[in-house]
C-alpha cells in the first residue's frame, strides 16, 4: 500500500507468526499433543482458579463473598462482550480500533434518544444498535471495498465517533429520563444472576457456536489464514469482511447499551478507555484453549483472570495504579511463555 504501513501480518495471534501451533484449529489431535502445548491450553483457566483460591485465603472476609463475585462478573461483562467484538476482525486478520468509541456511541445514543428525544426504551435501543452496526458496516466498506488499511481507517473512525459524540452531547452527561427498563437491564438480576452476565453468556454462546460450528466461522478463519487462497477457494472475501466488521460494530453496540445501563447515564467520555483492555483480553485469550487462534472462551477467561487479579490485589491494599501495569505485564508474560512452551514442544 502506498501509505507504507502494513499491519495485516501483525494481527496474527500471539506466538503464531513463525512457529505455528502444532494443532490446527480443526480436527486437532488432543491426545498426541506435546505436554507443554497441552499445558499452555489450560494455563489461563488454571491461573484464574489459582487467583480465586489465593485471594480467597488471603482476604476471605472481602474477596470470597457472593457480592464480590457478582460485582466482578457484572462490571466485566461489558468489557468481555467488547473483547469478543474485537476478535471477529482479528480472526480475519484485521484490526478494528473503533470498537471502544463505538461502544461509547451506543451508550450515548441509547440514553440520548430517550432523554433528549423522549423516545421509548425500544426505540432508543434500536437506534443505538443501529448506529453502532452502521459504523461497523462503514468500517467494512472502507476496508473491503475502498481498500483502506483497517488499522488506519478504524483509527480515523474512532476519532470521528468521539468528535460526533461531543457534538451530539455538547459535552454533557445524559442522566434525565433514562427509561427504567434500561436501568433494570444494567442493574437487575434474574435468579440471582446479574442481567449483563446473562447477556455475556448469550453473546459468548452465539459467537462461539458461529465460529466453531457454522460454515461462516470456518470461512472467517480461512480469510485470516490467506485472503487470496480463500478467494481462490470460492469464498466471498468482500462479503465476509463486511460481515466481520459489521458484527463487531453490532457487538460493540450491545456492550455500549449495557454500559450505559450499568452506569444509569450516558457519559460522552466513556468508550475509548475500553479499547486496550479489550485487545489485551483478545491477545491473552489467543494463548489459551486453542493456542494460536483467537477464541471466545479464551477471551472471556482472559477478561476475568485479569480482573480477578486486579480486584484481589486491590483488596490486599495495592494502590490503584497497579491495575494497568498488571494488565500489561500479564499480557507480555502470557504471550512470551506461550512462545517459549511452543518452541520447547517443537
Amino acid at each position: 500500500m502506498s501509505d507504507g504501513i502494513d499491519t495485516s501480518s501483525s494481527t496474527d495471534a500471539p506466538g503464531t507468526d513463525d512457529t505455528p501451533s502444532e494443532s490446527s484449529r480443526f480436527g486437532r489431535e488432543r491426545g498426541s499433543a506435546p505436554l507443554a502445548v497441552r499445558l499452555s491450553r489450560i494455563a489461563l483457566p488454571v491461573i484464574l482458579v489459582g487467583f480465586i483460591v489465593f485471594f480467597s485465603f488471603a482476604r476471605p472476609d472481602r474477596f470470597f463473598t457472593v457480592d464480590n463475585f457478582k460485582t466482578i462478573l457484572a462490571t466485566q461483562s461489558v468489557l468481555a462482550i467488547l473483547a469478543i467484538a474485537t476478535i471477529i476482525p482479528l480472526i480475519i486478520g484485521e484490526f478494528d480500533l473503533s470498537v471502544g468509541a463505538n461502544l461509547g456511541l451506543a451508550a450515548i445514543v441509547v440514553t440520548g434518544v430517550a432523554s433528549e428525544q423522549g423516545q421509548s426504551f425500544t426505540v432508543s435501543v434500536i437506534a443505538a444498535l443501529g448506529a453502532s452496526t452502521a459504523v461497523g458496516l462503514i468500517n467494512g466498506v472502507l476496508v473491503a471495498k475502498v481498500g483502506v488499511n483497517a488499522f488506519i481507517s478504524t483509527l480515523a473512525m474512532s476519532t470521528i465517533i468521539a468528535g460526533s459524540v461531543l457534538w451530539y452531547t455538547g459535552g454533557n452527561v445524559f442522566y434525565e429520563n433514562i427509561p427504567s427498563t434500561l436501568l433494570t437491564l444494567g442493574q437487575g438480576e434474574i435468579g440471582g444472576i446479574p442481567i449483563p452476565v446473562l447477556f455475556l453468556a448469550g453473546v459468548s454462546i452465539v459467537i462461539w457456536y458461529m465460529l466453531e460450528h457454522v460454515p461462516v466461522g470456518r470461512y472467517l478463519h480461512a480469510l485470516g489464514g490467506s485472503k487470496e487462497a480463500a478467494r481462490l477457494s470460492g469464498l466471498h472475501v468482500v462479503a465476509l469482511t463486511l460481515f466481520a466488521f459489521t458484527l463487531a460494530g453490532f457487538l460493540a453496540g450491545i456492550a455500549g447499551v449495557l454500559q450505559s445501563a450499568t452506569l444509569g447515564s450516558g457519559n460522552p467520555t466513556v468508550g475509548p478507555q475500553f479499547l486496550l483492555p479489550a485487545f489485551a483480553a483478545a491477545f491473552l485469550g489467543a494463548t489459551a484453549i486453542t493456542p494460536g487462534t483467537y477464541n471466545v472462551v479464551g477471551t472471556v477467561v482472559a477478561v476475568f483472570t485479569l480482573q480477578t487479579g486486579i480486584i484481589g490485589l486491590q483488596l490486599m491494599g495495592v494502590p490503584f495504579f497497579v491495575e494497568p501495569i498488571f494488565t500489561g505485564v500479564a499480557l507480555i508474560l502470557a504471550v512470551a511463555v506461550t512462545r517459549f512452551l511452543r518452541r520447547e514442544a517443537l
Partner: protein
Amino acid sequence: MAVPRPVLSVRNLSKTFPGQRALDGVSLDVMPGEIHALVGENGSGKSTLIKCLSGYHEPDHGSEIRLGGVTLALPYSPSHAHDLGFAFIHQDLGLIPSLTVLENLALGRGFATWLGHRIRWRSENERARKVFADFGYDIDPSTLVRHLSTSERTIVAIARGLQDARETAGLLVLDEPTAALAETEVRRLFAALRRMTVRGVGILYVSHRLEEIFEISQRVTIIRDGRHVATRSTADLSERALVSLIVGKPLDKYYPPADSTAGRKQLLKVSNLAGRRLRDVSFTLREGEILGVAGLLGSGRSELARILFGAQQRVSGSILIDGQAIRFRSPAQAIDSGIALVPEDRRRHGAIPRMSVAANMTLPDLTEFATLGTLRKRAEREFAQQLAETFSIVPRDPGRPFYVLSGGNQQKAILAKWMHLNPRLLILDEPVQGVDIGSKTEIYEMIEAAAAHGAGVLVITSEFDDLAHLCDRVLVLREGRVVGELVGDELQRERMLQLVYLARKSA
C-alpha cells in the same frame, strides 16, 4: 557354440487383483548383455510386472521366474530379491542425500554384514571409485550424495544395486531412469549402461520415451491390458509400428491423433482474449481433452489461468463455455460453473497452511457438510479421510495441519480439494513444481483420470517433456501471444523450446 542362457526368464506370469487381472500370462527373456525395453501405456501392467519381479506382489500360481537358469521359489520377499541377483532402480533412487556415496553403498549391503565386519573404508573407497570409473564417471566416494547430479546419483544407485550381484546373473531393472535427467545427463547414463552390458549384465529398461528405446535397447517387449503383445528386435521396428503395437491399432499419425477427442463436445472457446500481458489469445478445448500451455515465466500463462477462473478481469475478448458467453467476476462464480484452478503458488494461494488438510479440502463446498447451518464435523472428517485415501495423501490423517505435508502431498490435497467437485474444466498451473517424482506420476495419473471422466483440462507447466506425453495438444505462449499450436508428431519438447525461445532471439 552353446546358445547363451537368458539372465532372466519369465514364463506365464500372471497377477490377479480382486476384480481385475493386471497381468495375464506374460513371458519374456533378457539375455546376458542385452538391454531389453518394456513398454506399454499407463495401466498396461508394466509396473505390476516389475513389482512381481521385485517381490512386492505375489504372482499367481503357475507363474515362473528364472534368474541365471535357476527357477526361483515363489513368492519371495522384496528384501530377498536383492540377494537373488536383482537390482531395481526406481525413479526414487532411495539414496540418503545427507550421507556420502560410500556410506550409501555400505547401507545397501544390509545391516547384518555391516555390523558383523568392520568396514575397510580405504579399500572400499578405492573399489567404489574404480566401479564408477568403469561406468565412465569420476565420482569421489566421500562426496555427499546431495552434491551429486541426478545422473551421478542414478549411477550410485545402480552401483549399489549391482555391487553384490553374481557376475553373470546380474539383472538390472531400470524404471523410467531418465525421467528427471537433462539431455546431456541421459547421454552419460546411456554410455554407462552400455559399459555394464559388456560385463554381461542384463538390463530390463522401462521407459515412455520411445526415442530412447530405439537408441539404447536391442529388443522391446510390448504389453497391453496385462497381456504380452510382441517382442521385437528394435532394429526391425519403425517408431510408427511400435506405437501401433502399444496402442493396439494402426495409426494414421505418430502419436494419438489430435482428433482423439474430435467427436467430443466443445467445452471452451476463447477468442481474442487480452489481459495485462495476454494479446489476442484464441483457442478451443473439448471435453476429455488435455490441452497443454507451454510458456516461460512472464509469457502470460498464469494470467490466462486466472482470467478463465475469474480471479482476474480480462481487458477484451470473449470466453464461451458450452457456447454461452461468460464473464466471471469472482472465482466463486467460476467454481459454480464447474471450473477449478490449481494455482501456481501452492503455499500462498493453493491452501490455508494453518488449517487442517480436511478443512482445506472441504473449503469450496463446505455448505454440503452443513445441516440447518450447522457443520456435520463427523461427516466432514469421514469424507476427508476417504479423500486422503483416494488421493494417497500422506499422512493419512486429514486432521493434520496442511503445512506439515510435503510438497507432493500438499499438491495432492489441493487436487483432492478440486477434483471431488468433479469440475468440467480443470486448470492446473505448474502442478508438479517442487513435487517428488512419485507424487508427480500420481498427479499426472489424476489429471488423466479427470480427462477420462470427461473434464476438459488445461495444464500449464515448464516441464515440456511432460506436456508432450500428457497432452493431446499444446499451445505455445510467448510474450502474451499464442505462437504455436502443436498436435500429433509435433508434440515434442524440442519443438516447444524452439517456439518458446527462438522468435525472442529474432525479435
